[in-house]
């Protein structure tokens, strides 16, 4: 896979913030989650994109393994002095974040506009 090809996300630059939109409705399959993690980590570690907004508007299901990748991404962003925010999370998935208390770890905003204003 070419280094700049992304299979699992679409990127949009808004000022110095990179909006990362997940392409797939389900973040579930083990291989997909591994690849997604590599793509997200590459944004931080190779490309130096340190202000990231993850847009979940396309996502209607994710597993605990996917949560693990988001947690690792958060660690990497913080280790590089960056900022990570999440937005457009449907209620059922927000409940997953709330049940696991991850709504306290992540800065979760209602939509893209609110998230961008909070950077």
């Amino acid at each position, binding site marked *: 896979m070419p280094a700049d090809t992304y299979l699992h996300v679409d990127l949009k630059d808004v000022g110095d913030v990179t909006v990362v939109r997940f392409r797939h409705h389900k973040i579930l399959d083990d291989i997909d989650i591994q690849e997604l993690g590599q793509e997200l980590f590459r944004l931080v570690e190779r490309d130096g994109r340190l202000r990231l907004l993850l847009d979940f508007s396309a996502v209607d*299901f994710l597993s605990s393994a996917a*949560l693990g990748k988001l947690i*690792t991404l958060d660690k990497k962003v913080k280790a590089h002095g960056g900022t990570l925010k999440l937005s457009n999370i449907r209620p*059922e998935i927000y409940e*997953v974040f709330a*049940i*696991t208390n991850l709504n306290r770890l992540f800065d979760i905003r209602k939509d893209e506009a609110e998230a961008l204003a909070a950077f």
Partner: protein
Amino acid sequence: MALCGENWTWHCDRVIPSDLALARRLLDELLARLEELHWSCRDIFGVHLAVDEALVNAVQHGNKRDVGKQLRFSWRVSPRKVRVEIIDEGPGFDPRCLPDPTVPERLACPNGRGVWLMKAFMTHVEYCGCGNHVVLEKERSD
């Protein structure tokens, strides 16, 4: 757990190779039954998440990704309840030993939330025997 006496309208009992893709296709059949019975999106989401986490645990932790091993499962659906049993060939575990993933000192740990989510989204979760046999039940919320 009231296995007898419940008006089960659909059931599926299978023994399959320990293959997550195959198990998920069968889980999709279960979810389709719940949709036919007009279960709510939230309930179906919860069953999907909980059973998928249980299948991942059985295939990856129980059977150690060995496709030569088997998964034994049972789905049962009534208008008011769904009941799932999954048995792997692993040595099992003691669910009481699982740490609470929501405490501040474990919040940044990337693993260990599957069983917690299963318990949160289902009405009843029980590990039987040595812990390689899980029973999940959910009562319809509406």
